[in-house]
């Protein structure tokens, strides 16, 4: 709006009509300006008689983005999407809120929570209904309304634990500390639903006192507050002569009958239950109780301890009995007719067997049990049958074949020995040596594994070698079936899973068919993202080159040309008519960064030799581009800017010289397409001027 003087007649009386967008000279009547940009609100009639305001919706929140013209369709939708989401959320919240009878303030708070969740991207991967329900519940908790999570889950038809999980995540992420639920909050609500009529208030008060008493008796930690309320209300109702059955209460409070009964019994256990009604209303006992599960736990512990004690006593008694038994046996032995010869040795063998099992009491007991009179005789006999005795004892203990060779060795040792105790000694050592290996005792595994634990090499894990120490092969074999068993099992399994097998076969047949027809679409499971190898480059140029190669940012860029750029800027062959914006910063950076290497060339060479790629830029706003490039390039080299400036056709119009090259370039890019400067600058007026000239 510059001209205040008419070009034709020179009069300064110009009428500007904003509605029509005209500027008309009152003197000669010539139209000076047409299509002035106006900022009136226009209305358009819609089918059905309504009127709509013309214009795009621009979100107040997103702020300082430049309005896009021409290719603005998609980005315009993008901004409105956030608004749409919020709109939908608002609707849902109001639907649910109305069912819960929440007031408007609560619903607005819930919407705010939802906005916060949106900003933190917490809605991703979660059903919108879950998030909305969680936001509403958060409002209920912070404001202290008597709404339970169960109510919400009823309305939204979602599992209460799923809702709870979402709610907890939201509360944690948004750092909202919801105060703990107080069962007292629920009492008025439930009391109303129970229809006490005029006495509702009194019943509520009684129930409140009951709940407070329960709290002091630690019945409320870890329990659903609704259960406590139910119990309290039941008692309060009875106190005021209202007959409310357990079933009615269960329907309203939504806990199980057994829960209710349990709460009542727990309350019964507290001393408060012994008070009469009047006493209860007046007096508050100071004494507090332990929580009921705690007392139950203590009871259990006591019972267990008793059991242990009883067991100990029983063991003691058994021990005594055992002693008596042995003494009796010994007496019997002594009074029995003595067996001579072979049999004596065998009889002795049994005794020894028992004793040898008891390693600790071995030598002493053996000596004791020996009859002094027949000692020598027995010794001789025993020595003779030493071998057999040993075999006897050993056979009793050992079942594995491997020990047989050891047996023989041991036996050979014993034959050399003369003395009775000496004979015992090797057998003791023998037994000790053999005992750990007996699988029945089960000690072998643990002992050897203890011994070898330190020796276990951690390298085994990495090398993949299986460390077999401590693994008893034969036991492992127990885990495997024999061939016959395998056949049986196969038959059984096939019979069981026939349907599944059939399905598998059908699937394979289908795939084969599709392959034959060539339609088969291989649905490969998505593997994890392939990590690119880290780029190693000497200079920034190389780094960017390699990055571009790897990343392939845009499909419209001819990367080969980019490569050539580095080699020969003059001889760059291909020319892209329309290169998208993104290419420019990358290419620009590339080009700019390469400048320092070739500044000598660029500064002195005229525009034409800069390469066809750069020419389209040059025709537009060459001075801007080149100037900034050359400024960028001149930063490392302190060459004067005037030299390039003189070689370049300078156009009128503002040229922005900034010291921040990177960002500047990007801004420049935008500005070349869309800048208001351009619109309002001399160029357009130039165009308009053309029209005028032709008019």
């Amino acid at each position, binding site marked *: 709006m510059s001209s205040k003087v008419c070009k034709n007649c020179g009069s300064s009386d110009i009428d500007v009509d904003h509605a029509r967008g005209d500027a008309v000279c009152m003197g000669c009547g010539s139209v000076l300006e047409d299509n002035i940009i106006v900022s009136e609100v226009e209305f358009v009639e819609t089918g059905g008689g309504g009127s709509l305001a013309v214009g795009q919706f621009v979100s107040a929140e997103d702020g300082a983005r430049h309005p896009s013209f021409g290719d603005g369709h998609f980005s315009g939708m993008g901004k409105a999407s956030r608004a749409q989401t919020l709109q939908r959320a608002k609707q849902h919240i109001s639907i649910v809120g109305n069912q819960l009878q929440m007031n408007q303030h609560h619903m607005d708070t819930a919407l705010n929570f939802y906005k916060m969740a949106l900003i933190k991207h917490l809605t991703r991967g979660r059903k919108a209904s879950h998030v909305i329900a969680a936001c509403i519940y958060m409002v209920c908790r912070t404001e202290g309304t008597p709404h*339970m*999570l*169960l109510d919400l889950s009823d309305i939204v038809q979602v599992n*209460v*634990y799923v809702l*709870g999980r979402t*709610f*907890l995540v939201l*509360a*944690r992420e948004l*750092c909202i*500390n919801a105060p*703990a*639920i107080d069962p007292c909050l629920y009492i008025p609500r439930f009391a109303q639903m129970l229809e006490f009529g005029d006495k509702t208030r009194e019943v509520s008060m009684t129930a409140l006192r009951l709940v407070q008493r329960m709290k002091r008796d*630690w019945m409320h*930690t*870890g*329990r*659903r*507050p*609704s259960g406590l309320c139910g119990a309290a209300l039941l008692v309060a109702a009875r106190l005021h002569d209202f007959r409310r059955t357990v079933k009615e209460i269960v329907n309203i409070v939504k806990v199980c009958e057994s829960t209710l009964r349990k709460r009542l019994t727990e309350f019964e256990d507290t001393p408060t239950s012994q008070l009469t009604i009047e006493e209860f209303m007046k007096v508050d006992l100071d*004494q*507090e*109780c*332990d*929580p009921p*599960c*705690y*007392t139950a*736990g203590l009871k259990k512990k006591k019972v267990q301890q008793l059991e242990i004690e009883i067991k100990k006593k029983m063991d003691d008694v058994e021990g005594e009995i055992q002693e008596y038994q042995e003494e009796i046996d010994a007496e019997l032995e002594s009074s029995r007719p003595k067996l001579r010869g072979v049999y004596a040795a065998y009889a002795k063998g049994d005794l020894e067997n028992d004793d040898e099992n008891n390693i600790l009491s071995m030598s002493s007991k053996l000596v004791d049990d020996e009859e002094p009179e027949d000692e020598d005789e027995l010794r001789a006999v025993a020595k003779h049958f030493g071998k057999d005795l040993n075999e006897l004892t050993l056979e009793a203990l050992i079942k594995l074949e491997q020990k047989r060779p050891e047996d023989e060795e041991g036996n050979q040792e014993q034959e050399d020995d003369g003395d009775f105790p000496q004979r015992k000694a090797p057998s003791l050592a023998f037994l000790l040596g053999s005992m750990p290996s007996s699988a029945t005792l089960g000690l072998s*595994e643990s002992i050897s*594994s203890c011994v070898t*634990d330190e020796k276990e090499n951690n390298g*085994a*894990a*990495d*090398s*993949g*070698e*299986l*460390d*077999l120490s*401590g*693994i008893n*092969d034969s*036991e*492992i*074999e*127990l*885990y*495997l*079936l024999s061939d016959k068993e*395998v056949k049986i*099992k*196969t038959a059984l*399994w096939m019979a069981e*899973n026939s349907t*599944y097998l059939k399905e598998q076969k059908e699937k394979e047949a289908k795939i084969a068919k599709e392959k034959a027809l060539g339609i088969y679409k291989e649905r490969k499971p998505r593997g994890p993202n392939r990590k690119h190898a880290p780029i190693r480059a000497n200079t920034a140029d190389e780094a960017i080159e390699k990055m571009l190669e790897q990343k392939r940012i845009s499909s419209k860029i001819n990367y080969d040309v980019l490569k050539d750029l580095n080699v020969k800027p003059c001889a760059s062959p291909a020319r892209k008519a329309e290169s998208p914006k993104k290419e420019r910063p990358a290419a620009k950076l590339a080009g700019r960064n390469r400048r320092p290497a070739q500044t000598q060339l660029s500064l002195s060479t005229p525009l034409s030799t800069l390469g066809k790629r750069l020419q389209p830029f040059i025709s537009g706003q060459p001075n801007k581009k080149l100037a900034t490039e050359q400024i960028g390039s001149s930063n490392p080299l302190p060459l004067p800017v005037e030299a390039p400036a003189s070689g370049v056709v300078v156009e009128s119009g503002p040229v922005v010289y900034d010291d921040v090259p990177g960002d500047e370039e990007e801004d420049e890019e935008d500005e070349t397409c869309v800048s208001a400067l351009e619109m309002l600058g001399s160029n357009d007026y130039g165009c308009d001027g053309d029209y005028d000239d032709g008019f």
Partner: protein
Amino acid sequence: MDSSNDEALDIIITNVVATFRTRCHLNLRTIALEGTNVIYKPEVGKVLMKLRKPMITASIWSSGKIICTGATSEDEAKLGARRLARCLQKLGFKVRFSAFKVVNVLAVCSMPFAVNLINFTKNNRPIASYEPELHPAATYRIKNLKATIQVFSTGSLTVTGPNVQNVATAVEQVYPLLFECQKPRCK
């Protein structure tokens, strides 16, 4: 693993979960048909194999990855895993025991006092959270140890963590906080 202040708290490890790889493809059907104590789940694509000696249940996938649960100590888990690998070796697969890692340890512990959960949660927001409508215990998550402790009002704790040492440290860390919020014993 006893610790904290003067008394010794018994931390009983109830479950240790470990994973390892056999570095070879396993034919689940063979294992299912030739092993005792196996359950084949073709829908999911795994075989459950139960060992008796260390009481262990292993989930075996055909890729060769195996998850071993039910052990009561880290060493037992390793022993069980090696046994399992040996068992698979006997079945004929070229098993190599690699990448054994204890993934999760579950332990229980009991405080000699009861705990007031509401105060405990109030003092330790937001690390602790308590939702009586959902779960009777308060959950306390220690981020740097990656351990989760569930505190019940009776004073029992359930601790889960990536290894036994972390579990012990977690109990030590949480003990003073619980001590503050204990319920006075009356009876």
